[in-house]
């Protein structure tokens, strides 16, 4: 049980980042190569690879290399159904709260510039 708990907090950590949640969202539609995954993100490849390795260490995704192409996919059995459920609820509320914070800060800047 202690191991399980440690594992779950790693998954929480892995999914606390918007980039990593986006990667999981893309992989939800099927396996993808690293270059396909990285394309939409405006970040250097080494930074992107760090995000992938956090996801891989937490057991959310796995990757394999054929020739020069590394392909990533979700590991569906990494969590029990109950664990997945709570992880998803956290991801939804984290994302919503980020959205709200950004919106409120923008609203505040607008108020300031109107004064």
């Amino acid at each position, binding site marked *: 049980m202690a191991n399980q708990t440690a594992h779950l907090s790693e998954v929480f950590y892995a999914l606390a980042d918007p980039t990593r949640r986006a990667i999981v969202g893309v992989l939800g539609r099927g396996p993808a190569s690293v270059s396909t995954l990285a394309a939409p993100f405006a970040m250097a490849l080494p930074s992107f690879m760090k995000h992938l390795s956090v996801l891989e260490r937490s057991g959310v995704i796995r990757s394999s290399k054929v020739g020069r192409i590394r392909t990533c996919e979700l590991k569906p059995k990494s969590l029990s159904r109950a664990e997945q459920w709570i992880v998803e*609820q956290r991801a939804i509320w984290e994302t919503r709260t980020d959205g709200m914070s950004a919106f*409120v800060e923008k609203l505040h800047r607008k108020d300031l510039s109107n004064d």
Partner: protein
Amino acid sequence: MTRETLANPDQQDLVISRLVRAPRATLWKAWTDPDLLKEWWCPKPWTTEVRAFDLRPGGAFYTFMRGPDGGTSDNPGCFLEVVPQARIVFTSLLIGGWRPATPWLAFTAVIAMADEGAGTRYVATVMHPDKATRDRHDEMGFFEGWNTCIDQLEAFAQPSR
């Protein structure tokens, strides 16, 4: 915005905390004006329709979300407590007028805001049923709703900035 997240993996409660660089009054306005709430309740390209927003204990709080591929998420609920500029409690277990409901996702959320430095500390605590209750829901087809939730998560997972 400062990210601080407390992981409570042993519990069914999520505690999500942010330090928002804006006054409490602005945060309160964004939460309690349905025209503003729908702007941030779910990330684009999903859209939120606020079907009811009766901000008082027992008042209906009903959001309906639509995704780009025709996916929807129907979330009726009820406000339990409203303390102006400080606290909002709502649940999916009741609808307007305190009428009991059997939601696909049972939860009660406590939203708290307090001044902190020049900004506002925002804490959302989302309480879920215990494991036994959830297992019962599972047998009752609870996880049909869960699939909706996955579709929704996929949309939520898109970069929102």
